[in-house]
C-alpha cells in the first residue's frame, strides 16, 4: 500500500508532455486503435505492454507521425505535444520528428562511419556548434564512447548488435529531442546488451522523456515508472487495440485494477 502511494505521487507531480485523445486509428478499412486517452509525463519512462497486435507500436508511431508514410493510415482525434495538436496543419512533421526522436526494433545504423552516423542528424538540422564535441557528448550519454572513441571512422555497421543499438540511441539524442520513443529496442539483442540499454535508459531519464514499447514484462517492470497495458479485441471484423489500464508500474504489476491486466501480468494469457 505504501509503494502504491509513492508511485502515484511520482506520476502526479510531473508535467504532462504528450496527451493522447485518439478516437480511432485506421489502416485502410481496419480499425487498429480506439479510444486511447492517456497522458505521458515529462522525464518519466513510460512502458507500453500488451499482446502482439494490440496497437502499442502503432500508437508509438503516431507520436512522431511516422505513420504518415503508411499508405491508407488515418487518425481520428488528437495528440497534444506540449499542449499543441501534432496533426494541426501548422505543425510540420519534419520539425516534430526532430523534437520526438525514435529508436527502432532492429538496430539500423546508416552505411556511414560511426562519427557520421551521429553527425548526420545535427547537420541536416543546421547545427552550428562544435560537431566533435556534440558527437562525443552523444556517445558518452549513450554509454558507447569508451568502446568506439578509437574507431570513429569505422562504419557503424561494423559494431556488434548491442553497440549498434546504442549508436542508434546516440544518433537519436544528438538532435536534442525532448522525447525518445523506443519501439522494442532490445528485442533483437542478447540479455547482456539488453541490460546495458536498460541501465542507459535510467541514466537518460533526467534529460529526456522516454516511451518504450516492449513485449517483455520483466523489462517493463525493471525500467519504467508508468506502464500502460493494451489489449486486443475483435471489433467490426478487425483486431482493434484498446488501452485497458494505465498506472504507475508497481500498481500494474502488483495490484492491477482490471482483470485482463491481472491475467496478462500474471502470465495467464497472451
Amino acid at each position, binding site marked *: 500500500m505504501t509503494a502504491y502511494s509513492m508511485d502515484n505521487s511520482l506520476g502526479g507531480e510531473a508535467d504532462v508532455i504528450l496527451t493522447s485523445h485518439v478516437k480511432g486509428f485506421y489502416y485502410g478499412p481496419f480499425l487498429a486503435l480506439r479510444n486511447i486517452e492517456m497522458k505521458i509525463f515529462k522525464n518519466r519512462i513510460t512502458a507500453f505492454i500488451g499482446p502482439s497486435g494490440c496497437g502499442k507500436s502503432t500508437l508509438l508511431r503516431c507520436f512522431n507521425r511516422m505513420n504518415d508514410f503508411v499508405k491508407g493510415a488515418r487518425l481520428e482525434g488528437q495528440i497534444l505535444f506540449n499542449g499543441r495538436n501534432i496533426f494541426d496543419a501548422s505543425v510540420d512533421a*519534419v520539425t516534430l520528428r526532430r523534437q520526438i526522436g525514435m529508436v527502432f526494433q532492429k538496430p539500423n545504423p546508416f552505411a556511414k562511419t560511426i562519427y557520421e552516423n551521429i553527425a548526420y542528424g545535427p547537420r541536416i538540422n543546421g547545427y552550428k556548434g562544435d560537431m566533435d564535441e556534440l558527437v562525443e557528448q552523444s556517445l558518452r550519454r549513450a554509454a558507447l564512447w569508451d568502446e568506439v572513441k578509437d574507431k570513429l571512422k569505422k562504419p557503424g555497421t561494423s559494431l556488434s548488435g548491442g553497440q549498434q543499438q546504442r549508436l542508434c540511441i546516440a544518433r537519436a539524442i544528438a538532435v536534442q529531442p525532448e522525447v525518445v520513443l523506443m519501439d522494442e529496442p532490445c528485442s533483437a539483442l542478447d540479455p547482456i546488451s539488453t541490460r546495458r540499454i536498460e541501465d542507459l535508459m535510467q541514466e537518460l531519464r533526467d534529460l529526456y522523456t522516454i516511451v518504450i514499447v516492449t513485449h517483455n514484462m520483466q523489462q517493463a517492470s525493471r525500467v519504467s515508472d508508468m506502464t500502460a497495458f493494451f489489449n486486443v479485441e475483435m471489433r467490426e471484423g478487425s483486431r482493434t487495440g484498446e488501452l485497458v489500464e494505465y498506472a504507475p508500474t508497481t500498481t500494474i504489476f502488483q495490484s492491477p485494477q482490471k482483470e485482463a491486466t491481472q491475467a496478462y501480468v500474471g502470465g495467464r494469457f497472451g
Partner: protein
Amino acid sequence: MGEVVWARAVLMLIRKGVDCGLTTAVTLASVIALVPLFSILLYVTYKGLGTVLTGGLSIFTELPPPPMVEGGGLGPAIVGTLIVVSIGAAISIPIGIMSAIYLSEFSAGEPIAYWIRFFTNVLAGVPSIIAGVFSFGLIVLTTKTFSAVAGGAALSVLMVPVITLATEEALRLVPQDMRQAAYGLGSTSLQTVTKVVLPTALPTIVTGITLAIARAAGETAPLIFTALFSQFYLPFDTEGPGALFNQPIASLSVLIYNFALVPFENQQKMAWAASLVLLGMVLISSIIARTATRRNM
C-alpha cells in the same frame, strides 16, 4: 533566443524549398522520359498506317518495289523474319532451357554454377553486332555465302542468355515442396524435371521465350552481313531446304535499314510500313507476354 528561432524557421523554409524543387525535377524527368516513346509510336503509325491500309493484304505478300514504282509489299521480308527468327529459336530454346535446368535443379552448392551464371550474364551483354561478326566468321566465311542459317545462328547468340536467365528464374519460382513430393514418390531427377517442375513453370518460361523472340525479331545488326537481304522469296522450289543454307534472305529490319536511307519516296514509304509491322509485332508480343504473367511489373 528569438534570433535562433528565426534562423531555424528560415532554414526549414530552405529545406522545404529544396525538397519541393527536387520533387518537381523527378516528376518532370518522368514526363520527359515518355516523350520519345509516344513520339515514336505516333509517328510510325502516322507514316506507316496509310501505306498498310492502301496496300491492303498485298502489303503482306508482294515483293518490295523497285525505285519510283508504286505498290509492292513486304512479303519476302515478313516471311524472312519469321524464318530467321524460327531458326534462332530452334537453336536457342533447347540450349537455354537445358542450361537453366542445370543451374536451377542440379547445381546446388556447386561453385561452377556461380561462374556459369556470371558468364551467361556476360554473354547477354555481348553487343548484337558482335553476334553478327561471330556468325560471319564462323558460318559465312566457311560456307562462303550469306544465308538464313547464318542469320539465325547470329540471333541465337542473343537469345540463349535471355532464355537461360528467364527460364532459370521461372524454375526457381516452383515451390520446393513439389520437387520433394515428386522425389518422395520415387521419381528420378529426369522425371521430376520433365513431369513436375517444367509443366509448373511453363507459363513463365513461355513469357521469357516470347520476349526473347520479340527482341530477336527486331534485331538488325546481326543480320546485315549474315542473312544479308533479298528482293525475293527463298527459292525453295529449285533449291529445296538447301535454300536455308545457301541463299541470302530478306528481313523486315534490314528492309527498314536499306529503304530508310534511299532518296526514293516509294521505298521510304515501304520502310515506314515495315516499321509499323515490326513495331506492332514486337510490342504486341511483349505486352501480351508481360501482362499474361505480370512479371514484377
